[in-house]
């Protein structure tokens, strides 16, 4: 039992190891002094730290706010507003992430907080949309029988609608994470830090090794987070 339970940890641990190997190799085998200056342990871990903070803070905020607004819009009284918001969200999703960051830079200026805020707004969209869609797509007959048996609207939400919408909400969160990781590498342009710093530095000094280190670590972070969320979902949803 224990062995099957812990088995899911193998892949993320493997990926983390790969990340460490790449870091250790590139830091210890710089091709020249420019690379050596860009790739130090402190630089890489600073970038990792910033990158994770950018993602975690913006994602947690986006999940809380996105799910909350999604639930609110799915209530019968706000349903038609919800349909409208859904359309606006779909349009919002088509704006490139770089444009969003640039837009917030012109309004709010530079820095980590602005980057977090922009990422947060950008990540809300898929979560909100999927929460709304997940809840409103629960079969009407299921809701009606729950109502007819005397369940209160709050109980219907917590016992029926949210559990049934859960897989779709999680799919939205996973979409948001993937978008978020990509967008987080762009945060460097408005002083947000993260692996984007390495990539931009690498581009500036034309050293592929630095670009490769930043890009591969960013990709690994995305894969690991997506995998963990997927595992959590699999463990909770048992009824399909």
């Amino acid at each position, binding site marked *: 039992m224990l062995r099957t339970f812990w088995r899911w940890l193998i892949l993320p641990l493997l990926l983390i190891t790969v990340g460490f190997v790449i870091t250790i190799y590139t830091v210890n085998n710089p091709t020249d002094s420019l690379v050596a200056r860009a790739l130090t342990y402190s630089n890489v871990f600073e970038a990792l730290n910033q990158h994770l903070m950018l993602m975690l803070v913006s994602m947690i905020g986006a999940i809380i706010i996105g799910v909350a607004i999604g639930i609110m819009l799915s209530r019968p009284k706000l349903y038609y507003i919800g349909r409208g918001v859904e359309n606006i969200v779909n349009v919002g999703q088509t704006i490139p992430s770089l444009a969003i960051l640039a837009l917030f830079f012109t309004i709010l200026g530079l820095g980590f907080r602005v980057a977090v805020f922009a990422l947060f707004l950008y990540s809300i969209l898929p979560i909100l949309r999927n929460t709304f869609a997940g809840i409103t797509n629960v*079969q009407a*007959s*299921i*809701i*009606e*029988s*729950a*109502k*007819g*048996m*005397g*369940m*209160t609207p709050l*109980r219907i939400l917590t016992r*029926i609608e949210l*559990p*049934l919408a859960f897989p779709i909400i999680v799919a939205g969160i996973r979409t948001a994470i993937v978008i978020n990781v990509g967008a987080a590498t762009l945060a460097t342009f408005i002083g947000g830090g993260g692996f984007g710093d390495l990539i931009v530095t690498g581009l500036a000094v034309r050293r592929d090794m630095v670009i490769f280190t930043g890009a591969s670590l960013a990709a690994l972070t995305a894969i690991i987070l997506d995998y963990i969320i997927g595992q959590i979902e699999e463990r909770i*949803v048992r*009824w*399909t």
Partner: protein
Amino acid sequence: MIKLVGITKKFPGLKKPAVDNLNLEVKEGDVCVLVGPSGCGKTTTMKMINRIHEPTSGSIFINDKDALKMNPIKLRLDIGYVIQEIGLFPHHTIEENVATVPNEKKWPKDKTKQKVDEILTLVGLDPKIYGKRYPSALSGGQRQRVGVARAMVSDPPIMLMDEPFGAVDPITRARLQNEFLRIQERISKTIVFVTHDIDEAIKMGNTIAVMREGKLVQHATPSDLLAAPADEFVASLVGRNRSIKRLHLIRIREILDHLDRPKPATVDMPLNDIRKQLEDSDIRSVMVVDQDNKLKGIIGVNDLKKKAGEVAADYIQELDQSITSDATLNDALSMMLECGEGYVAVINEDDQYQGTITLGDLLNVVKEEG
């Protein structure tokens, strides 16, 4: 007792009211079937009783209490509710589904568990086998049973059923109907039952309320409805072959006792003895049972002539058509037609032989009643 007084329901945006000034009384322990073409307001009427729809005007009394003044949540907790789509919760196990109302009422766990097992057994699902399964692992008929069990589990005095057997094949439907009638005989709930199928209405109802365009056309017992339709509409709804519809009203056990049939043969009976028994009557075959009175099969006269001295067991032909005694004569008739034979064997739940019904018996019944 349920009493609807001058109930009207208008939906916004529609000129005609869905239900128009309807008066209806359902006595305690009765099954009242609302029947009519689709769009006649029968479902709307039913859904006003537990206030899924709020009536535009009029009042509803449940056991002399004004339902419209009660807290709708409390009202619904004491009204069993089954809809055609069943609406089982796909993420809950069968046990959890059935325990929905007890959980809402915050029953203690062991009481809930005991009652859930009891009710699942009552509808013919072994809680040990099915309790932990999810609805997706059940057949349509089994889901319908779970739906009915879920509505009955907290022993509500009143049940509302909207085409509860609508989504299954005809054979399963007949079986579920018979099972339900057997359960209802024991628990005598006050039931409002909606269907568009007049045959089902005649079979299930103590009274039938025929509706048309939001109005109540006739409310009568099934036999009165068949004997004296109030107008052309009701007459066309019950159809031309009313005498055949009467077969829905009569259960097999009601006529079984009056029939004069030869005793069944037992498996160890010598063929000669069976032949002697048959010689006095014009019957061409005889049922064979074992020592526990369980039905084994049938022996025809032609087989009896073949060899003297042998026992019945050697010449038994297996029998496809058997039916329980709480099925209706109409069920018996359709089984005969299906099998292409002029008789069916009647058995009880333990496969024990109860008697035989022939096509001639059915004709006699139709003649007498008509």
